[in-house]
């Protein structure tokens, strides 16, 4: 019996050699598969179907080491923002060409996902009610939820994005830390817009990752900004900024009032680890 088994194994050797030869001949370095060896749990957030759309086989996922394969020329940007994982799933009513491509990016923090959303949304995109914040443009929908940034693109005009995005949003983990990103910013009068500056808000080298809220109060427009962390470092940067710009600040209580010939009067202060400021504020507007 053992002899027969040995014979079969020996007989298989040429076949094994042929298979190895064929694999070697068809080797294409461009086809090296960097993908994760196991399916990321994040794939569970993509529904099997939504409305008329059904999930197509062959989901893809990418990490920092191969993100450039999918986001050509833009990978460094995402990685610089704290990218961790991208999952890509395609949808269509029936097997064949995709009608919709759904991408979900996981970042190291919610603020990073928010920053990417603000950078990536089209100029003409309109805000819609989905996830933590969402925008819809021509054939494109993007939203954030916790540290996740999702982008859905309709390759076919018939592809319905909102229903699918809603389903993905419902399935995404409700990660801890999904607090209101803007909660540290005062909410007075009427909010005109909320924004994000990845670096050098208003040309201030120390004001990176700044959250902003533009308000209208008593017929005046003003804008608060918030630097979520590194307050003491921001204060040192603020003082260097004043020196560079040859400007002075007056200390009013725990706050600084800046007399700026180009921006008008503005304020800067610390609140524990956060740094805040306001352009256009009167003292009575400050929290």
């Amino acid at each position, binding site marked *: 019996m053992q002899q027969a088994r040995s014979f079969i194994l020996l007989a298989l050797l040429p076949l094994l050699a042929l298979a190895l030869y064929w694999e070697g001949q068809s080797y294409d370095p461009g086809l090296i598969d960097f993908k994760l060896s196991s399916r990321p749990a994040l794939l569970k957030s993509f529904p099997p179907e939504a409305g008329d759309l059904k999930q197509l086989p062959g989901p893809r996922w990418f990490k920092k080491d191969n993100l450039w394969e999918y986001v050509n020329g833009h*990978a460094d940007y995402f990685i610089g923002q704290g990218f961790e994982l991208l999952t890509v799933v395609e949808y269509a009513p029936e097997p064949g060409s995709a009608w919709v491509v759904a991408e979900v990016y996981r970042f190291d923090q919610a603020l990073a996902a928010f920053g990417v959303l603000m950078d990536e949304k089209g100029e003409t995109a309109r805000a819609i009610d989905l996830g933590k914040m969402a925008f819809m443009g021509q054939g494109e929908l993007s939203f954030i939820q916790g540290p996740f940034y999702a982008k859905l693109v309709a390759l076919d005009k018939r592809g319905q994005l909102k229903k699918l995005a809603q389903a993905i949003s419902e399935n995404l983990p409700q990660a801890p830390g999904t607090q209101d990103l803007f909660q540290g910013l005062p909410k007075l009068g009427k909010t005109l817009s909320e924004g994000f500056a990845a670096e050098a808000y208003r040309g201030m*080298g120390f004001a990176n990752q700044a959250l902003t809220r533009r308000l209208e109060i008593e017929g005046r427009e003003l804008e608060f900004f918030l630097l979520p962390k590194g307050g003491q470092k921001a204060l040192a940067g603020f003082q260097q900024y004043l020196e560079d710009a*040859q400007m002075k600040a007056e200390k009013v209580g725990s706050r600084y009032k800046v007399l700026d010939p*180009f921006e008008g009067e503005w304020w800067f202060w610390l609140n524990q680890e956060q740094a805040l400021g306001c352009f256009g504020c009167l003292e009575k507007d400050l929290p």
Partner: protein
Amino acid sequence: MKRREFIKTSALSGVGLAALGGMPDSALGADRIVKYNKLGNTGLEISDISFGAGKLPASSLVLRAAAAGINYFDTAPDYGRSEDHIGGAMARLNRAEIILASKYCDGRSYPNHLPVGTKKQKFIEAVDTSLQRCKTDYLDLVFVHAMGELSENFEEEKQRLFAEEMLSATESLKKAGKIKHLAVSSHGPDNMEALLLEAVNSGYYDVIMPAFNFMKFPKVPDLLKAAKKKGVGVVAMKTLAGAKALELDQGAQDFAHAAFKWVLKHQEVAGLVVTMKTVGNLYHYIKASGQSFTQADQRQLDRYASRWGSQYCRTGCNDCGPACAQGVQIAKSLRHLMYFQDYGEEKKAIQGYAEISPNGAACQSCENPSCEAACPHGLPVKTMMNQAHQDLSLA
């Protein structure tokens, strides 16, 4: 970045004040632009240190720059909200004292250069939109942007340089008073000097903007002489030879001044544009205005070159090519390495490298790297080719 790592600013100092309506002296920094130069035959005089408005964060930075004497502002439709911020500052600027340059581009994110085949009306609409955003009724210069970026094929890009619809639109815009001069810019990566020379010799262009610094582009001085002869103005860009300056252990601040002064010592160069994203950038950069290039500056640049020079294959050189017995396309291979490392075009670089034959694969076992003796810049060509092959072939 390696793939594996990937994996892992006299006499004219009043000009600035005049450019800014009603700004108090106390607003000014300690340093100002002190030198302005004639821009070819345009009749314009631009500040030697001028304002690159890519990534412009606020209108106030434009006002600060104008108050410091900068009078030339270089923007584009595809520089994000740059034109909007310039428009935000416009009401407080004396338009006649400002030289405003924008580009024939469409859309808000870079790159959106209008390609060959674009209709005349589209060029006109692009300028009209720029004027609306900038809140002004004319541009001093409009650029055909980034020549050599859309195609590595010289003839294809040359078509963009002399596209009839673009030239016709330019003529109409000039007649309407919406633009004053036509200009062209290029930072390569392909055929920069040759394409700009075509522009200079054509008579259609009043200004060129080449990438020019002490590290790369050895053929630019010849281009500058040709431009001077034809009365074509020159504004330089990419003068800092890459962001690696930030990684210098010492004297990083002086480095920017030395690099600027090196460019400006070329009399054909009227001025340079450098991206100013912060108030700190602005007040630091303008300190170089009107300053002479010194021995100390040369030492600073030498330090930089000795640290980084061995990594730069000069665009358009190719002196090593004929020296290779195996006919390896060295310059082309290293250009694709540049796409990968400096332009963030990883996939394009890998695909393009795969089409080069013979490529760096032939260098792996080479025992007579005659290319290194042929390189006028002393680059370790074999090592660089091995690196290119490692990064670009995924081998």
